[in-house]
């Protein structure tokens, strides 16, 4: 038998006002994941958070807040995992060069720099690689 699979692809203008739409759509998907063994409400929140973080980075860092740019999100749900991809049209960056730790030191408590930490903490894997016309940030979460 073929595996059940859901594929969602959405393109939005490069504007933060669309964050909540993507967040809510991803939550609807997550609460339906019957194969996920953990708490589906938390998973829904986590998916909403990590997609928001990835989208904001694409909108602000990669696409330089240009409102006429487009951001693309792809979500694939199979029987054993959830894959989320966010495409940007920027020059890319070296994700491994970004510190894995939190910017919470007493001397230098920073008001930014927690996005990748959050994505890495809540997902099983986070990758960033070039594709035609830009780059993709890819996050995976297994259901087992």
């Amino acid at each position, binding site marked *: 038998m073929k595996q059940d699979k859901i594929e969602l692809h959405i393109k939005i203008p490069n504007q933060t006002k669309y964050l909540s739409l993507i967040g809510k759509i991803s939550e609807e998907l997550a609460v339906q994941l019957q194969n996920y063994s953990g708490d589906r409400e938390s998973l829904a929140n986590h998916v909403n958070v990590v997609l928001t973080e990835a989208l904001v980075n694409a909108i602000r860092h990669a696409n330089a807040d240009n409102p006429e740019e487009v951001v693309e999100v792809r979500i694939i749900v199979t029987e054993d995992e959830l894959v989320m991809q966010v495409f940007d049209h920027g020059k890319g960056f070296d994700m491994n060069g970004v510190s894995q730790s939190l910017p919470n030191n007493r001397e230098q408590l920073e*008001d930014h720099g927690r996005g990748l930490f959050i994505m890495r903490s809540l997902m099983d894997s986070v990758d960033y690689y070039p594709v035609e016309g830009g780059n993709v940030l890819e996050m995976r979460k297994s259901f087992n």
Partner: protein
Amino acid sequence: MNLKIEESNQAVIVVVKEERLDAHNSETLKQELSRLFAEGKTKVVVDLKDVRFIDSSGLGALVSGFKNASARQSSLKISSLQSQVKSMFELTRLHRVFDIYTTIDEALETF
């Protein structure tokens, strides 16, 4: 962004009337906090009762307010975290940085 600002004795209460505190609206909160401390307010409570979702930018706006307060010998307290918001504070270890209370009144009592 929808903020309700109240004064109570010496303190200012900023109630965030939004379901999401994210990169789309957190800049307004950051600027409002900055304005309050610049005006000389020394006791500010940010109430998050209505907030169901927070991202790193929302947390960042609060960190910015906290730094602002510390630099001026003032204080910023936070109240009424919903469970998913609370777990974001814990994940980013910011629950150790902020003074967090269950209700606005509890936060006010500690000034």
